[in-house]
């Protein structure tokens, strides 16, 4: 996923288009995994690129463009959420030692909407690390940079988040199926 050679020199509209083409899909998917709302995800994605248009030329390290975009989007999300409501702090639980096994047939029946709904039911601290893990755009170190937390914490949260995701999907995979809003 290395598209970074000349990114820091982007200044023209043509270069901006190139940057948007490369990253808008994955940025939107990350934004949607955080907000679970199409309009909010679109706004976050747009705002991220406009922030880049305004400040991106100050970035000196060309290899960090993608991480810069994801970091900016995540901070924008946190800032918007901070204004809306104060969320309670969640203590991290240990990884369940008796992790459930999910039958392959059950796994295959999952669709994107169900997976995203299940992600929304994770402890808040797990959601962004798990989303970035599955999007596979970043290394663990880059995920740590984006979220502003130590590498060890990222690894721990990914493991615990996935364990929790498995439990949710095993225990109650489609709790709101009747009223589920189809995305896209």
């Amino acid at each position, binding site marked *: 996923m290395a598209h970074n050679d000349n990114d820091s020199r982007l200044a023209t509209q043509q270069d901006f288009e190139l940057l948007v083409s490369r990253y808008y899909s994955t940025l*939107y998917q990350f934004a949607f995994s955080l907000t679970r709302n199409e309009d909010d995800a679109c706004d976050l994605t747009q705002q991220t690129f406009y922030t880049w248009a305004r400040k991106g030329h100050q970035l000196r390290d060309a290899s960090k463009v993608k991480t810069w975009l994801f970091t900016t989007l995540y901070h924008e999300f946190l800032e918007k959420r901070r204004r809306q409501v104060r969320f309670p702090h969640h203590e991290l639980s240990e990884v369940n030692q008796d992790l459930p096994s999910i039958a392959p047939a059950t796994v295959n029946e999952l669709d994107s909407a169900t997976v995203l709904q299940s992600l929304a039911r994770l402890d808040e601290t797990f959601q962004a690390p798990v989303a970035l893990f599955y999007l596979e755009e970043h290394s663990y170190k880059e995920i740590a940079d984006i979220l502003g937390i130590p590498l060890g914490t990222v690894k721990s949260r990914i493991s615990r988040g996935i364990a929790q995701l498995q439990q949710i999907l095993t225990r109650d995979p489609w709790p709101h199926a009747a009223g589920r809003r189809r995305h896209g």
Partner: protein
Amino acid sequence: MDSRLAKEILLRYRPGTTSDPEFAEALEEAKRDPELGRWFAQHQAFHNTIRERFKQLPVPAGLKEEILAGYRPAVIPVWWQQPAFQALAAAAAIVLLSVVAFFWSRPREDRSFAAFQSRVVRNAQRGYVMDITTTNLGEVRQYLATQGAYADYVLPAPLEKLPGDGGAVLRWHNKPVSMVCFDLGNHNDLFLFVASRADLPDAPSTSEPQFTQIGKLTAASWSTGDRTYVLAGPGDEQFVRSYLSP
């Protein structure tokens, strides 16, 4: 490595990342332990499916076009980068620095705290170049330390929670001044300036902030230990004060 630890590690395993020693060891354990091996096979199926579903998440049609339609290019003085202009700018800078140095070296120069505060806050309003651009406040602190600027500053709790925007080292009568920028969102920034109390003879003497309006920004100033702080931002006194105490 026991089975429990191996499971925790394998939960976050992404195929293709075997170069990481912890994964290599856990994968070996999965080969040795049949029960763990069966669990891992099922987990891999789970991983592949969830991964695919993430990637299948549809992106709204027209989003890309919307982003491009709203594009407004930043005003970047590209012509500055041309050699002729750089040479001219360098010559002008030398002349300017000579003039500035002459006036600054005069005995009646204004070294008061008010002059310092006005200088740094107006600098933030006029336009400035950050030496480092990052959202990570730790990186800013580290950069300032490597540049010999003050990096032992104590941030009020609300500032700790803000994302950074970057930082720079300014000079005040040849003494370093640390500048830390915080991103408030909506294109607004907060600017924190940190100087040595000893370099500012009439700096605030207490940690109780004093407020003043400088141009369009409200500035709060206080001293703690050997450091004097100036925090400048948009909005009124109440707004800036909200970033000083929880």
